Structures are given as C-alpha cells and as structure tokens.
C-alpha cells in the first residue's frame, strides 16, 4: 500500500501490583523514563505522545487524559488519548502507528497507565456505569455478569468443559512466574486449584479471572529512517486492525467474537499474512478471563471455532510449543491494569522478537507475533502484528 514503515524501538514497564504507592502520573513517568532509557532517547527526541488509560471513573478524575499528561511527558507536545475500553492497550500502538505513518511525526511515545486501586472500596463497582443507563443499569449489573454469561454461552455452544478451560489459567500463571513484574506468577498452580477456587459468578471462579492492578507500560515508536539509525534490532508494526461491534450486545450471539475476526482480517491483510496459524510464531491474545483467550484465538483465526482449547491440551500454546500463547503470563499472571496490560503484550512481543525476554524467552528465534485486546460490552477487538 506504500505506507510508511513504523518500528517499535523501546519499551518500559512498572511492576503490576494490587496497590501502588506511586500516583497515576508517577507510574506513567516511571514507564516512560524506562522506555526512553531503553533506546537512549530523551524527552527532547519525542515529537508526540499517545496516552491509553481506561475509564475515568476508576480514578474519579474527569478528563483523566489531561490530568495524566505531564506524567506521560506530554508537556508542550501534541498529545492525544484514544479510548476503546479494554481494547485500549493494544489500540494505543495503533494510534501511535498512524501518528508516524501519517508523516506528521517520526518519534512517538506511547504510555498506558492504570491505577484501579483508587476506586473505593473496589474498582468493580465502577463498572456498573458501563451498562446502558436506561435499559440495564437499573438492574444493578455486576461486571462479572457479562463475562459469566458469555463464558456460559461459549461453553454450551461448543461443548467445552471448565476443566479444560482451567488449563489456560494454569499455563499463564506458570508463565508469569518468570516475569519480574508479575503479580500472580505461580509455578506450582494446578487445574484443581482453579476448579476449587471461590465461585464468583458461575461459571467464573476466582482463578479464572485476572486481578485488579496498578501499573504502567510505555513504548517508543519510530519511522523507518530513525529506527534504523537508533537500533540494529527494530521490531516492525506490520499490521494493525480494530473493530467495534454494536452496543446492543443482547442482540448478538456471544459464542463467537466477530469483531476480533474483522480486526484480525484487517491486520493480516496489511501484514500480507495468508495463513495465520503457520505464519504467527507467538500470540498474545487478551486474557482477562481464561475462556477469553480461547474465544480470541478463534477470532484471530489461530484455532477453529470451539477448538482453541486443544492448543493448550496438546502443548502448542506452551512456551516451548509450536505457537506459544501469552509467554508473558498475560493478564491472568502478570496482572490487569487495563490499558497497561494491553500494552504489556506489545512490550512482550518486542522483547521476545529481539530475543531479550530473559527467562521467558521462547525458543526458535520467533519472527512474527500478534497481540490483541478486547473491550467494551464484549464488543471491540484491537490487533497488532509485529515482526522483525
């Protein structure tokens, strides 16, 4: 298509914790500083900043993007915050991509930050306001409802059992044991641990769910001519796609995420990928709940409908498997500071594709990875394909 090539050249992240001492601005700054140091740049080199952060209600701060701007290094810089709910963390690199691809900027800083612990007493209560104010909110819905009823629909439609789905949580939490920023890494966790955990909203149990977390991640993007000058190992953004389904979620079949499929098709087309399952070496699909990974792998075309769980049962998804899934440990293992968790997947692909992932490094010099996030009322898919 004759588009400008855009590379990821630096990354930084804070630990993901239940409750951080740092303020939202400080978390943003810590991640940004680390990303700058990782590619030996300073704020003077940054021409624009993109911010990703989830609902203002978490922080109780209106126009949260404006509030965070100086922490993210946006003082006297063009600064935009894009927002697609839970999909934001993988949308922010898309936003950064079009900043650079437009030709207006050569070097752009992306920061995703979340401090969910500010909401008192529990961030989940903030989620009641995501439902339609007239037709749904009066029923006092819990966020877990939509996940639980989607999970139930998915399990029933394809005849998948909870024991198999639990393998996802186990795998991701085991992977996270090797992530220095992880909150819930557990090398010894078993399927029984997941199945015996507290029932929150059947079929969802405690260990099926990622935790509420605080944290930040930052990424630096550069145009090709700059990237080649600054690093010998640029990782290219080869494909991007995003898609938002109707808000009338009760009018859709929840068994399959069409919006993920549409977003993925867009990204594959741009990246020139014909056979995703053969050409993608690492997948970082969005995993706030264990079943969601399966849902998303199917939407991404990396597994047939209802068959994604086989990737876990036959070892394909393991870190040493044919297509490691969430070698980072994902949201289930590292933690889920919403937007930051999505951008963490981009950071993971960056490190993995450069061979810098330390104890988590997957074997076989992977060349292409895919990251995906999801959000809103089971409605939005955001997809980024990266390669070296």
């Amino acid at each position, binding site marked *: 298509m004759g588009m400008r090539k855009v590379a990821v050249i630096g990354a930084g992240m804070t630990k993901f914790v239940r409750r951080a001492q740092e303020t939202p601005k400080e978390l943003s700054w810590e991640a940004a500083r680390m990303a700058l140091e990782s590619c030996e740049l300073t704020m003077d080199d940054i021409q624009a900043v993109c911010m990703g952060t989830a609902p203002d209600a978490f922080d109780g701060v209106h126009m949260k993007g404006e509030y965070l701007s100086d922490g993210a290094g946006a003082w006297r810089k063009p600064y935009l915050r894009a927002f697609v709910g839970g999909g934001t963390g993988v949308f922010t690199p898309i936003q950064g991509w079009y900043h650079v691809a437009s030709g207006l900027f050569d070097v752009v800083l992306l920061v995703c930050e979340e401090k969910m612990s500010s909401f008192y007493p529990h961030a989940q209560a903030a989620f009641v306001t995501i439902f339609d104010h007239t037709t749904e909110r009066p029923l006092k819905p*819990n966020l877990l409802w939509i996940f639980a009823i989607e999970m139930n629909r998915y399990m029933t439609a394809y005849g998948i059992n909870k024991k198999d789905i639990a393998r996802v949580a186990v795998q991701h939490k085991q992977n996270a044991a090797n992530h220095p920023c992880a909150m819930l890494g557990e090398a010894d966790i078993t399927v029984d641990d997941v199945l015996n955990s507290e029932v929150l909203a059947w079929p969802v149990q405690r260990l099926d769910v990622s935790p509420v977390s605080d944290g930040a991640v930052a990424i630096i993007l550069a145009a090709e001519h700059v990237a080649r000058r600054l690093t010998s190992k640029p990782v290219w953004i080869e494909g991007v796609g995003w898609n938002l389904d109707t808000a009338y979620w009760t009018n859709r079949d929840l068994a399959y995420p069409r919006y993920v499929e549409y977003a993925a098709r867009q990204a594959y087309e741009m990246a020139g990928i014909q056979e995703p399952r053969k050409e993608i070496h690492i997948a970082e699909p969005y995993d706030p709940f264990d079943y969601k990974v399966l849902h998303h792998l199917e939407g991404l075309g990396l597994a047939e409908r209802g068959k994604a769980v086989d990737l876990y049962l036959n070892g394909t998804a393991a870190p040493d498997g044919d297509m490691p899934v969430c070698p980072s440990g994902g949201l289930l293992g590292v933690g889920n500071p919403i937007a930051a968790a999505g951008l963490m997947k981009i950071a993971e692909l960056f490190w993995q594709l450069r061979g810098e992932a330390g104890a988590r490094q997957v074997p076989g010099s992977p060349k292409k990875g895919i990251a995906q996030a999801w959000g809103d009322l089971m409605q939005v898919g955001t997809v980024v394909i990266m390669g070296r």
Partner: protein
Amino acid sequence: MTARIKNFPGVSLSEKDFEEGKILFVHDELKADYAWDTGIGIGAYLAGLKRGVILGVRCGHCRKIVVPPRTVCEWCFHPMDEYVPVKDTGMVNTFSLCYVTWDVKRITEPEIPAVIALDGASALSETSVIMGGIMHKLGEVEPKQVKIGTRVQAVWKPESEREGAITDILYFKPI
C-alpha cells in the same frame, strides 16, 4: 531488555500500610447526577413497559425485529419506526449464577442474570446472528435448575407500581 533490567519500578502497598497510617490519602465521594433524555425509541420502550408490553422495532429493510427499539437499524442504516409488541415469554440464551453484587458484596443466594431471547422477535439461526434479546434477571427458580434453553416468562410489577422502567419487570421465571 527484561533480561538485563534488574529493578523494575513500582512500590507495592498493603492494607497494613493504610491501617498504620504510613500512607496518606484523600477521600472524595463524587456527585455526578444526570437526567438522560430517553428520546423516541427508548421512550416508546419505557412507555410500553408501563403498560405491561415489551416493544420491539421492525426494520423494513432487513425485516428483523429487535429489542429494545431504536430509530435506526445499525445494520443497514435505514430508519425504523414500526414498533411491534413482542411476547413477554422467551428462552434463556445464556445466564450466570452471580455470588457478588454490583458493588462486590458477597451473597449466598446468587443473582441470576440472563440474556433472554424474546418470542416474537428475531431469533438466532443458521443464517442470522441477530436476535431480539434483552438482559434481565431470573427468579422463582432453583439456581442449579436453570439451563440454556429454559423457557421463561416475565413477572411484572403490579400495574399501579409500574413507572416506565426496565425494573417494571421484576424478573423472568421458568414456565
């Protein structure tokens, strides 16, 4: 990178840090009040509920009947103004047994949120992924007895107590 970095930033706090007063914080309770105009589509829907009727809307172009009513078909972008009552019976498309309230209080008797595909509205089929379904709660049922596919009917508030709100339906119960 992660291989080289020894110390990642971020300081984790515990409940104890707050109890012992080591960490200072500012508490604020927000007052954000709104009066949302319901408009034409949802206005008709709420007026219907007050009468004890669930209204859907039919797209003259796609020929689908969906709930709740809206003034534009999101699939073909044609305007919709043909309001049709659908039945207050339907089938559980999916559900959950939820042991925590919206503000995360633990409960022993679960709430049972469900998506109910209403009779008289469009249904899922081989060729259609669009249905006329709404979210509501189930009641008068042993939680473990609920299945996907269970037939249910709305239990309405007494007419005198209805106010034109989704809560005019108390819940759906199996039939």
